[in-house]
């Protein structure tokens, strides 16, 4: 056994012992939990993924709508701020990297630089809600505003009329900010583009714009439309910088006391642009002077099933999408690049505290923009498996053990045209208060 294996072995053993010897659950709940006196489990199927009640609460503008939503008159008084930290050990390795010593597998590990999410959310007054999330605070000192929006809720007294303004996450089939996995491997299809495309649009990245959202009681039927400037675009000289639009609609069924307790079907699509020409200075593009915006599109379907008791479900999610990038976005392309992809994810709540989760992602180019390119160049697939065990959730805090293994393969991206495989081993404590 190698020395590294021994270290990992010891760490796992220690974590297992920690679980076994952990004290009985303490009573306690972050900001919304404090305000409404509810446990984390009320809104989260398994933290941080929302359940039906949590989704309805969010869709209502972080309100219960029963006369107790006012931030000032709520008793007990509360400060709408939560903090989330995930101190963890992480080992990363990637294969087929070119070095002076030849093609090597490179790997490094250690206790990761600890970042922090500062979440402040709630209502300014009834039917005006907000979310502001500064994130970062890691050793690099960088802090960014991941989210910053205000939402006008229930306009004209209708739950079908809600408007959000600011930097927000579009209404994805599965939130990119609430995944069960904590390594940096997100849902690949959200950010995938045809091979060689210069567009960096990622559905999972929060966008600056306006969202219309409507839903019925209980959010069984939902529709959301976001119009935005594509985040991370180098910018254009157009009146509307780098426009994009995203649409999502879902319908959910709840079955009483049936083997399948819930089912959801949805459709989604995005149409975004990206600049392809720039004014230059010394040959370098001048930011904000882009022109000739060219399109990328992605559209797909989602299906979700919950098996067994809704309070401790086996949750299966499948998302499939087809996408296309304009040939103008792909250097040397003579045709538009197209691709297909998606993911299959499961989460099984053994009980209210323990979750086993897994996911398989796949994205394959179906037509290369550059006709001479290998058909599978830059295809990606990934698999993830992990578990979370929450030691306690209260109306003040929650902390959980999180262990995870993720592996991502990219075709032809390594030295000499070899495939690369990136493996991540992750173990840490995820806590919020």
């Amino acid at each position, binding site marked *: 056994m190698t020395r590294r294996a021994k270290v990992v072995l010891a760490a796992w053993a220690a974590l297992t012992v920690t679980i076994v010897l952990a004290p009985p659950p303490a009573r306690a709940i972050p900001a919304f939990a404090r305000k409404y006196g509810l446990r984390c489990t009320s809104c989260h199927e398994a933290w941080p993924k929302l359940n039906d009640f949590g989704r309805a609460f969010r869709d209502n503008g972080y309100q219960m709508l029963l006369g107790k939503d006012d931030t000032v008159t709520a008793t007990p008084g509360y400060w709408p701020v939560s903090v989330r930290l995930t101190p963890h050990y992480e080992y990363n390795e990637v294969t087929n990297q070119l070095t002076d010593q030849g093609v090597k597998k490179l790997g490094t590990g250690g206790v990761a630089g600890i970042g922090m999410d500062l979440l402040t959310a709630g209502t300014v007054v009834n039917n005006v809600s907000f979310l502001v999330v500064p994130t970062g605070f890691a050793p690099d000192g960088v802090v960014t505003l991941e989210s910053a929006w205000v939402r006008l809720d229930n306009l004209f007294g209708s739950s079908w009329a809600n408007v959000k303004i600011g930097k927000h996450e579009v209404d994805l089939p599965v939130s990119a900010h609430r995944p069960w996995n904590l390594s940096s491997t997100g849902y690949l299809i959200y950010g995938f583009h045809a091979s060689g495309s210069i567009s960096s649009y990622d559905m999972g990245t929060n966008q600056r714009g306006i969202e219309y959202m409507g839903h019925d009681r209980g959010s069984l039927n939902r529709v959301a439309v976001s119009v935005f400037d594509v985040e991370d675009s180098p910018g254009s000289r157009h009146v509307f910088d780098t426009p994009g639009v995203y649409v999502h609609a879902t319908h959910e069924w709840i079955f009483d006391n049936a083997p399948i307790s819930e089912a959801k079907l949805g459709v989604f699509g995005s149409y975004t642009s990206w600049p392809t020409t720039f004014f230059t200075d010394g040959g370098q593009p001048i930011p904000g002077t882009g022109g000739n915006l060219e399109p990328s599109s992605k559209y797909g379907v989602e299906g979700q099933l919950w098996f067994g008791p809704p309070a401790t479900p086996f949750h299966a999610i499948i998302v499939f999408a087809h996408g296309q990038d304009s040939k103008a976005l792909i250097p040397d392309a003579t045709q538009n690049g197209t691709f297909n992809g998606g993911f299959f994810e499961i989460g099984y709540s053994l009980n209210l505290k323990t979750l086993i989760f897994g996911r398989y992602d796949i994205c394959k180019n179906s037509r290369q923009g550059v006709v001479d390119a290998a058909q599978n160049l830059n295809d990606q697939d990934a698999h993830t498996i992990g578990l979370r065990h929450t030691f306690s959730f209260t109306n003040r805090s929650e902390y959980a053990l999180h262990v995870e*293994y993720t592996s991502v393969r990219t075709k032809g991206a390594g030295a000499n045209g070899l495939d690369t495989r990136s493996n991540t081993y992750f173990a840490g404590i995820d806590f919020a208060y």
Partner: protein
Amino acid sequence: MKRPIQILLALSLLALARPSGAQEASSPVARTPVGSAPVVSAPAIRGKVVYERFCLSCHGDLGNGAGEFADHIAVKPRDYRQGTFKWRSTPSGALPLDADLEKTIRDGIYGTYMPSWYAIGKGNRSDVIAYIKTFSPRWKTDQPPAAITIPPEPSYTDESVKRGRAIYERSNCAQCHGQSALGDGPSAHELKDDWGNPIVPYDLTQGHIKCGDTGADIYRVFITGLNGTPMPSYTDSISNDEAWDLVHYIQSLSALYSKNYSKKP
């Protein structure tokens, strides 16, 4: 390298799968709540998990209304052990129907920390009702009677409002709810519920009633009373028509109440 990790992952999963404390939900042999029979029915077993997920922080793991949040709120969570419920369609003192409990859980209670659990689905609600019934032995010995009959609502008129005001005074409602129905009557600060908790008379001018805003919802409170609170049943002291007049008087106190302006009842 990979094999030991896989073995340890498997061991970790086994370790985590064990029950870990009284609040764990995985065991099919459920805990016996204080003063009640063991949980045996399948809905109640499922309902226990639903209860632990959604209800426990207020109502407590013993169903005694002493959850971790209970100390922080003015309107105390229901103590299920006595089998006493405020919001019922059944006569005063009786157990509620399942439909009554379903309505309370589905719609929530306005002005309190009891939210609407509409989004969790009827199956979950039915299961948790089955579990709630295990907290009190009363559910073993008593059966809830049929719901009271609520006659059709007459038209809302100025005359019915005037008559309702007279009934409000005659029935001494102002003693608790105050002359202006703001919940500030002379006795307002002295009231306690059956558990000894201070209880505040409702401000009827808010335009929302805790148990529902329709005329029938308000009517029902006069006839059934609110068990466990100082709000009595008036079934023996006012007639059906007078109860409707009183409903109309309360509805006159806020534009938010919907009113029956139709000519026909």
